[in-house]
């Protein structure tokens, strides 16, 4: 019994740590969902695009993936604003279904484009610290997993401060709670959508880098991350930073324990089933009316 518990210590620690990735992905997804009430089904693909961006910078210029974010974050931010302005917002004015369908189209375009540019084969971001690990008790923890967790903490704090302390952040918060009243405050919904989407895609770039450091990725690996991140928002609650953080840890755990007991299939099957179960129990999400 004791032995089996200590055997679990490794997957538990790892799951909690790389759950940080889901926190960052879910935060981007929920920013957009909060104001537009549309799930950007291409969000996972933007994350993978972020991984490829770091991959290109690393393999061509030898720049460390984390440093490449200095360019990646502004680049993805602008890309997000443009996509929102010229594609999603126009669809959104037609209907929410139209916006969802457009996002689905964008998702397939990114997947196919990535396949053309980088082949369907899996890639990973290999750096000097990729295989470093440290020991805590009996558990060996890869350094990159710890980075995932640290980044999640940093991102949560920064996003929280931005939402609480700036006019723009408060405008996004207000628009998520009551769009019509927000308009009466002088808040332009189109502007809020653009910034929320730009920030979400910039967060995808961040998540992409650490995902690439943690797992191998290929052009279609964004879909499971989207689904799990969606699970995180429903579990953790929209707009609740603590909830999102804990939700990310729980899904990280479900993935690592699923993998521990049922192999590679269980790694996805367990979190997917959890998403379905949560949706069934709380169909409006835990933050529903």
């Amino acid at each position: 019994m004791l032995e089996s518990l200590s055997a679990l210590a490794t997957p538990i620690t790892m799951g909690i740590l790389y759950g940080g990735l889901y926190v960052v992905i879910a935060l981007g997804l929920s920013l957009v969902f909060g104001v537009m009430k549309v799930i950007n089904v291409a969000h996972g693909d933007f994350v993978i695009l972020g991984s490829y961006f770091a991959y290109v910078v690393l393999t061509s210029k030898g720049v460390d993936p984390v440093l490449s974010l200095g360019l990646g974050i502004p680049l993805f931010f602008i890309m997000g604003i443009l996509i929102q302005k010229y594609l999603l917002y126009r669809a959104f004015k037609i209907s929410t279904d139209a916006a969802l369908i457009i996002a689905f189209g964008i998702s397939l375009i990114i997947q196919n484009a990535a396949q053309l540019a980088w082949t369907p084969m899996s890639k990973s971001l290999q750096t000097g610290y990729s295989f470093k690990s440290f020991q805590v008790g009996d558990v060996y923890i890869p350094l990159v997993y710890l980075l995932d967790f640290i980044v999640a903490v940093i991102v949560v704090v920064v996003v929280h401060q931005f939402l609480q302390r700036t006019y723009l952040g408060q405008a996004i918060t207000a628009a998520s709670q009551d769009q019509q009243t927000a308009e009466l405050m002088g808040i332009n919904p189109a502007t809020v959508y653009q910034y929320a989407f730009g920030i979400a895609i910039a967060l995808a770039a961040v998540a992409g880098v650490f995902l690439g450091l943690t797992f191998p990725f290929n052009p279609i690996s964004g879909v499971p991350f989207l689904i799990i991140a969606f699970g995180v928002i429903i579990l953790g609650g929209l707009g609740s930073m603590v909830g999102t953080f804990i939700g990310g840890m729980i899904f990280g755990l479900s993935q690592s324990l699923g993998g521990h007991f049922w192999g590679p299939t269980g790694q996805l099957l367990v979190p997917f089933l959890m998403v379905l179960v949560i949706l069934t129990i709380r169909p409006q999400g835990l933050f529903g009316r």
Partner: protein
Amino acid sequence: MGIVIRRYTPLIALGMVIAILAALPALGAPKTWLLYLIYFYIFLAAANMWNLLAGFSGLLALCPAAFIGLAGYTMTILTWLQVPYYVGLLAGGVVAALFSILISPSVFRMRGIYFAIGTLVVPEVLRLVFLRWRPVGGQLQGGGAGYMVKGVSGIPMQQTYWLGLAVGVASVLLIAFILRSKFGFGLAAIRDNDVSAASSGIDVFRLKLYSFIIAAFMTGVAGAIFFTYQGYIEPNSAFNIRWLMIVLLATVIGGKGIEEGPLVGTIIVVILHFQLARYADISLLIQGTILVVIMLAVPQGITGLVRDLRRAVAGRALLPTGNTSIFSFILSRRRKSHE
């Protein structure tokens, strides 16, 4: 007398088209034509069913691949158990329908975007299950994965062709019937206003559930026919998101929520499918771009555009065209047929 003839003209025309299509193999049509048409029938049935869900029942169900894959697997596994494949086709549809009933208590609690994402997860879960699970035959290395469909290599192409034609025609007739029945009017009332429909005594849940089950069955049968033609099945393609892409594209190009929409859209999708086969590596890129462009430029689809143009020409441009309620659509057609 003239009125009677006019009233039945569309039916007679439809009958003649079906008769000609059915006679094509006997008339010695080239095999490539038959192949194109088989794809057309199967895609048409699936797109018609998706239109029933997303267009007429307000259910943005992203899980057609679940029905297609499950029915395909059912049919395939049954052929391993010596069950003839044509029995397997129906059994596949039934299993898909049963599956839709099984998940309905869960997914029907979800609304709007939650329903969409919930149904998006379903085929992914099935894909993972079938990657692990090997119901018949020996264990391959690593568990589940692909199967040959036994005993279908000898089936002549004409037979698959006629099966496809049957399911395609059945889907068209089924939609036509549903839209003109009490069921269809109930759906239209729900789409216009969920709450007021419920308060006027319409059982919203039950009508949506019926749509879901019917769509699961028909989509499943169509999918199973596809796998008898293909001759093998494996989880990654059976539960692939490309199935969703096909029905979505066909319905959106043709016109979501319009009876003839999928018919027009599927013609374009099949042409695209075969034209793009040469450029397989960029086919999704092109299809995705078309989807985005159509959705932004002509959100009502081709048939919707034609209808709007006609209205504008007829000097009825003042009517709101953005809100394409099928209810008013049916009423206007009815009125026309009474004139």
